[in-house]
């Protein structure tokens, strides 16, 4: 039982679990970091968009009977609309107010959305009935001895990598991406150059919320547990991931998510499962202590 082979397959399995979790954290963290990059606001309601994503997909699949992939696309679209609405209602009126005011509004929106979900869906944990989802999700994609990788994990990792790649292309290869980078450098000057700043900000919210919603769907599937407060813990973790990677930096959010996910799983697996969250936060604190700008954050200069 304690042979070297078993030990290494245990480690490999934990690594697979950690990378999957990290991928999800990265998807959420990107939403935090993009919004921060553009308007220097920590959007605390982002975790709730993630929660709404999970609930919307669940409702569409179980109550409206939509096929899973249709619900997936539809939910992402609705979540990006939610992001825009959130910005228009809660943050745009406070654009020139002190940053603290917007921050408090963000916390307020977070509490509001959480309670709204509580009213609509109730507090009980919701789970997808198994027969409703594509059965391939539960089959093993790749197995080596005791190590297994399910198709669901493959799906999560693939979605994460593909959406990150698309995001990178949008930011660096399109006009709107260039505009986003310009706004993150200097809002006023960008406006003087003819960039429609509010539209760029709305777009940022849309993209960030789409990714947050997507993460919600994936987590809902992976752990099969959907509940109104799920956004809170995930939001805090993803925020920690964004800070760990360097807030405002998109590659930083990806790296931070990965590091945090792996640290959490390895910590729970090898150190103590009782202090699982403590271990992941300790890693974050250690990084911030020695490198206050995060792993690949820049001190000044462009952010997104």
């Amino acid at each position: 039982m304690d042979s070297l082979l078993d030990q290494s397959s245990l480690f490999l399995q934990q690594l697979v679990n950690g990378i999957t979790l990290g991928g999800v954290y990265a998807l959420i963290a990107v939403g935090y970091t993009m919004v921060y990059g553009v308007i220097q606001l920590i959007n605390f309601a982002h975790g709730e968009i993630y929660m709404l994503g999970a609930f919307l997909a669940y409702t569409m699949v179980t109550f409206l009977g939509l096929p899973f992939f249709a619900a997936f696309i539809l939910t992402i679209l609705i979540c990006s609309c939610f992001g825009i609405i959130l910005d228009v209602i809660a943050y745009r009126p406070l654009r020139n107010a002190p940053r603290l005011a917007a921050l408090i509004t963000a916390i307020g929106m977070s509490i509001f959305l959480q309670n709204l979900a509580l009213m609509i869906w109730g507090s009980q944990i919701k789970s997808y009935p198994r027969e409703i989802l594509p059965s391939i999700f539960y089959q093993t994609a790749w197995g080596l001895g005791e190590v297994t990788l399910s198709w669901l994990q493959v799906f999560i990792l693939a979605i994460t990598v593909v959406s990150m790649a698309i995001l990178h292309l949008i930011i660096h290869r399109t006009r709107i991406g260039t505009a986003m980078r310009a706004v993150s450098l200097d809002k006023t000057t960008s406006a003087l150059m003819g960039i429609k700043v509010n539209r760029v900000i709305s777009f940022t919210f849309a993209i960030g919320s789409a990714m947050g919603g997507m993460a919600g769907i994936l987590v809902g599937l992976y752990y099969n547990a959907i509940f109104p407060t799920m956004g809170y813990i995930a939001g805090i973790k993803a925020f920690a991931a964004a800070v760990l990677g360097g807030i405002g930096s998109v590659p930083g959010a990806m790296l931070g998510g990965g590091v945090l996910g792996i640290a959490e799983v390895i910590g729970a697996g090898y150190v103590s499962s009782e202090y699982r969250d403590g271990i992941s936060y300790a890693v974050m604190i250690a990084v911030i202590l020695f490198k206050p700008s995060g792993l690949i954050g820049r001190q000044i200069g462009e952010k997104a």
Partner: protein
Amino acid sequence: MKKTALCLLIAWFSLTGAAWAGSTIKIPVAAAFTGQLASFGEGIKNAAILKGEEINAAGGINGKKVKIVLEDELCDPKEAATVATKLANDPKVSIVIGHLCSSASLAALPIYRDAKLPAISPASTNVNIGKMSPFYFRNVYKDDFQGLFLARYAKLARGFDKVAVFYEVNDYSMGLMTAFQKEAKKLGIKVLGTEAYTSDTTDFKPQLTKFKMMNPHAIFIPGYAPQGTLIMSQARALGMKNVAFFGADGLDDDLMLKNPDAEGLFVTTPFLPDKAGPHAAGFIAAYKKKYGKEPNWFAANAYDGVGLAAQAIAAVGEDRVKIRDYLASLNSKEKAYKGVAGNTYFDENGDCLKEAFVKEIRNGKWVSAEKQLQ
């Protein structure tokens, strides 16, 4: 001038208060009625209301009507302390039925003790509760008994020799684990490993992956159903097909039935409708008629709890200390309260010893386990 007005107001309030106290007897029931553990509270709520109605239909207590008041504390220790303070300061309250979760009971208990307010918990099984207050009673068995019973059952009825324990970081779960481990050692069950989780966890894969490498016959989950169902699904997803799962009363929840991966799970329970005997038939029929389903053990114990409170008030009136002394005097089999979930009589700590049963999930339904240990 102002002073006299205030005095009049106070006088008016106390007079009307006395008038209300004169016409009805308020019995508060404190448990989780919303939140994650609301399904536990549901049985308690239903049965308490049912018992209240039955008492009133039979003429009330000494001619006064009973009023069941629900106090929601979400099984959260902070909320439980708030509710307890409110009840302790309400002069119309002479006894409390509650609380549900052990952590909530432990938070409420010192407040009741200081206010000399007796309480009967229908569901808190943590070992330490009884010892901490002469005013806290319970009509459910303790975790040391439950854990011991489970270890014996696992070994003697099921033949498990290698077991892993997956516990939640709270008073209930850890007390249960300790009792189980102690008895397992005596019986020669090898506990391969213990892992923990917290109530907000949804990812159990790192711990389960460790268990998988240990190859246990069974995994003991001394926790609650919302996490239990996830643990079982994630274990199956990791390829642990032949591992059995068992738990205590905390997993005794219909939530488990929605999960096809929970097939075969067995749990201890203080009450089984088909093993309850003739004296419970009336309760089971009335409950089924009113709520359309069989009562679970939470319901049975809450029903007995309200019955016990009513008997105490009928005997000694609405004085807190007298009620406490009356309950404490029910200390032998002969003096026991004969309820639907067995006979309740208290030891010097206010704890009681009752039988345990085992039920399991077969074809997506809770049924009495074929093998019982009596």
